[in-house]
């Protein structure tokens, strides 16, 4: 419906034609579509979150064994809120409850990777299938990555001495009415949207310009097409882009439309969300560099494997 409306507006009401009209049409349509989806999905996730908090997740994960723990931690990573600034309290809090370090890492990988903004953008830009693939393989990286880190004697690289939590894990269960939850979810949605709507606008604008003016051959050439180095390059480029996922993803959509392979695109987007430099710097306060390097290496390799796999089979 929006597609027709926006098309009608640009081509008939203003009476534009050619490349400029194409670009403007694309810009209007994509912006409205993504904004709408972002608000809907962020609201849905925020509402769900009013029933969960990290303390509850911790109480639930405490005492779970290694593999099961990894799977549950990765799944919880989808619904629990996560910001880089809470990475340390979260990490120490998990260790305090004596949750295995590998399970903690599964959570730490999954939470930023499967964040609501990335999922909403993927769903809006690439459709359900790609969003589902992204989540499924994101979970796989979190589960296997965390499990592997658990195999490396990572405990010796935790710089702080974390005393075990004494007594039971008390959970402050919030007893809110449904209206209160709705209001809380709406406030959260508003906060998040306020932070990213401009990024989306800029990303879509640049994407629209690409869409209208940059020939496909050029993009295929610069994103490597099916050359072997396309995937590692995509991962390296994704690392410094953390927190701009909202602006970067519209670009990736256009790039794939113009010949970038989906595997490279997936690798790139996962690197944007999962490999965050600010997070690494913050974790350095409590973890030895060697463990952070292992953490980055394992996720990096996992993400690249996904990229190669998809470039091969699609």
């Amino acid at each position, binding site marked *: 419906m929006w597609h027709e409306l926006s098309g009608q507006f640009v081509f008939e009401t203003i009476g534009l034609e050619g490349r400029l009209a194409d670009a403007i049409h694309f810009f209007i349509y994509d912006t409205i579509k993504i904004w709408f989806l972002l608000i809907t999905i962020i609201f849905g996730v925020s509402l769900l979150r009013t029933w969960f*908090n*990290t303390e509850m997740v911790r109480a639930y994960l405490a005492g779970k064994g290694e593999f099961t723990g990894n799977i549950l931690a990765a799944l919880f990573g989808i619904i629990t809120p996560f910001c880089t600034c809470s990475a340390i309290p979260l990490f120490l809090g998990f260790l*305090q409850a004596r949750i295995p370090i590998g399970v903690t890492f599964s959570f730490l990988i999954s939470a930023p990777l499967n964040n609501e903004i990335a999922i909403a953008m993927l769903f809006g830009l690439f459709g359900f299938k790609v969003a589902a693939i992204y989540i499924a393989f994101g979970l796989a990286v979190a589960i296997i990555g965390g499990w592997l880190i658990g195999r490396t004697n990572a405990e010796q690289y935790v710089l702080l001495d974390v005393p075990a939590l004494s007594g039971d894990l008390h959970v402050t269960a919030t007893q809110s009415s449904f209206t209160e939850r709705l209001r809380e979810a709406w406030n959260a949605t508003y906060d998040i949207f306020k932070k990213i709507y401009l990024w989306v606008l800029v990303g879509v604008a640049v994407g629209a310009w690409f869409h209208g003016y940059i020939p496909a051959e050029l993009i295929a050439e610069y994103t490597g097409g099916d050359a072997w180095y396309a995937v590692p390059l995509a991962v390296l480029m994704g690392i410094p882009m953390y927190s701009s996922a909202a602006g970067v993803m519209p670009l990736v959509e256009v790039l794939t439309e113009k010949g970038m392979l989906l595997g490279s695109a997936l690798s790139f987007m996962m690197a944007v969300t999962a490999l965050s430099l600010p997070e690494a710097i913050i974790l350095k306060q409590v973890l030895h560099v060697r463990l952070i390097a292992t953490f980055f290496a394992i996720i990096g390799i996992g993400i690249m494997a996904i990229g190669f796999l998809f470039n091969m089979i699609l």
Partner: protein
Amino acid sequence: MKIEILGTGCKKCNELEAKVKQAVAKSGKFVQIEKVADLQKIMAYGVMSTPGLVIDGEVKSTGKVLSTAEILALL
């Protein structure tokens, strides 16, 4: 009465502190407000998502900025 705001200095923690001050002013009660940035102390309360709100040693909320009205109800 003593209110502690647990947080390592993120934006939300400052927002919560401001709201707490407003609420206390409105209530007219004599309340001691303290900001806790020491990780070990925050850990000891079992709080992982900051900001946390602690009143007289009891954790009242974690990970969110309460409204002035909500804080007033807790006082």
